[in-house]
């Protein structure tokens, strides 16, 4: 079952065929998954105000139903350290096709993973876990399971990855909190089953994981 707010977002996004980042994050946070503190700013000053309240550095991203891959149109600015940087980003992004606003959010650091879902015609919803970031399709380091997942599936998925050591702690780096990662993936797999009539694929990329938390830093839902 999908709640009415989520249903409304899906309905409104049918025309473009996908759900933009702020709306996707809203769906995931309503489902109990962790997202960064963010705002969808319609003006530069609104963006600055949020950045000052949250504390620098922040990340700014273009929001446009015409832009599925934001980095491909230089629509992401990370590590902005002062108000003018926020204003500059806003001015630049407002020139991008279909601009509807700018998303500003706290900047997180940690191990970047991708958690995804696909509605497979033969097997129904399947869940993918892998190394995230913009290089995902180059490294192709991922594991797949049919949803719904059990707790033990997450451990075995991690053990399949080449980047396993990065998740389990490599040369003194902090290991990812496996409990948080497990509950995120399990909850996400349940959500994928609830949404199976609506979506074709979902990317949570990156999910930023540390010893304390796993937070969905970017998300998109491609509808059927």
């Amino acid at each position, binding site marked *: 079952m999908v709640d009415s707010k989520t249903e409304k977002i899906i309905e409104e996004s049918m025309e473009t065929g*996908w759900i933009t980042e702020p709306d996707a994050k809203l769906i995931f946070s309503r489902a109990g998954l962790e997202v960064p503190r963010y705002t969808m700013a319609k003006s530069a000053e609104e963006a600055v105000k949020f950045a000052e309240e949250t504390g620098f550095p922040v990340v700014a991203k273009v929001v446009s139903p015409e832009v*599925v891959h934001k980095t491909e149109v230089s629509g992401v600015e990370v590590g902005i350290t002062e108000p003018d940087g926020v204003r500059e980003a806003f001015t630049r992004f407002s020139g991008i096709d279909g601009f509807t606003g700018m998303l500003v959010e706290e900047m997180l650091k940690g191990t970047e993973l*991708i958690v*995804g*879902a*696909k509605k*497979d*015609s*033969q*097997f*129904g919803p*399947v869940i*993918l876990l*892998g190394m995230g970031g913009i290089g*995902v*399709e180059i490294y*192709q380091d*991922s*594991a*797949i*399971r*049919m949803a719904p997942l059990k707790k033990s*599936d997450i451990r*075995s998925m991690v053990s399949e990855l080449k980047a396993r050591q990065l998740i389990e702690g490599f040369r003194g780096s902090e290991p990812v909190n496996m409990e948080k990662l497990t509950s995120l993936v399990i909850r996400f797999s349940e959500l994928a089953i609830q949404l199976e009539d609506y979506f*074709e*694929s*979902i*990317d949570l*990329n990156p999910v930023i994981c540390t010893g304390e938390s796993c937070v969905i830093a970017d998300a*998109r839902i*491609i509808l059927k």
Partner: protein
Amino acid sequence: MDFRSLFEPETMAVVGVSLSNDRHPANVIYNKNNLRYPVKVYGVNPRGGTYYKDRIYQSLSEIPEKIDLVIVAVKAEHVPAVLQECIDSWVGAAAVISGGFAETGNLELKDRFLKIAGEADFPIIGPNCLGIYSPTAVDSFFLPSERMVRPQQGNVAIVSQSGGILVDQMVKFTGQGVGLSRAISIGNKAVVNELDLIKFFARDDLTDVISFYIEGFGPGEGREFIQAAAKCPKPVITMKAGKSSAGTRAVSSHTASMAGDYKIFSSVMKQFGLVEARDEHEMISFCESLSCYTRPIGGNIGIVTASGGHGAVAVDTCEQSVLTVPRLPEKTQKSIREKLTPGIRDIASLSNPLDLTGSARDDDFVVAASHLTTSDEIDCVLVLLLPYLPEVTSDVGARLSQLYHEEGKPIIAYVPHVEKYRMIIEGFQLNSVPVAHSIEGAVLMAEAMKRCTPW
């Protein structure tokens, strides 16, 4: 659906028997079953008449007794009428050999007979298939008997979307000494599909291992199949054709791009403990191994051989797969060494792989292997035999097999030449110990047992 009439019919009718053409598929099927199987066979052709002194019936309803199985080998457009007649005559099951349905775009016909079958809950195999091969009961393959290679009766069932692949697998089963319980070619699987058959074979007394050659599942069929397979207490082996993704569809998400159809298939098989064979060689190795040992094992392998090279190749192959070759404890090594024949006692290397050297005797192989079959550190023993060594006798196969029957721990043998060392091989195989003819094949056999466990 009741499949007994399909695999163990007492009466069958072949529809489409020609009065003049002995090579017509229907005639080949009619003749082979008439001459060589216990099933009672009737020929049907709307024109009636006689064929080699036998009466040919004009319709199924004319036949004086109840028919268990009907083989339909008529043109596609006549098939729905024949199927309707089957249902009206209370036939048990049908196999439609004829092609010319969905594979050539004739969808309407396929839908029509799906509807006929669905209403009556009537099992139909095919269309566009070879049908059923049940070693001592019936054979609906339209291949002359003298051209077929028939494996011995055994406990492995084969389900195949492709008839050609199925016949080839039977050839390979025979070559490798793997026994077949039943084989079925399901073609376009309009009615009976993999899901129905896994449910049947899970309960079939003759079958201990079920193998599938799969080209593709229909929408949602894969999930249903995997859920049934997860509940099946017998090992399930799959081989998938069409591993390369069809074309380059434009995909808008990273997940859709990375989760290709085959990657999903392969991952799901692993997730639920189905053993996926990547090619025919793996398929045969897995079938042979699991037909002897149907229970999953851990991945620790003990290797006994008489050549350092064989041991090294086996270790490499194990390490590249899901298996490990642990070092044997000093205590075990010492115990083995004390019992070896004096000629090799000081030169054998026993840490695992155990290299007994070229002077090893049968007794040495038995001593080494028996320590491994009783050792908790080892889940499965590979014996890489060099039968050309002067002290190795033809008894070695049967003697080593005895260790499996004493301890219940799987043993896999490697013997290099099938013809020359036949007696050693039979010493293993007749005692339910599988024999590989390559070192890699022996490792694959062990891998099959490890991969039976869900991840």
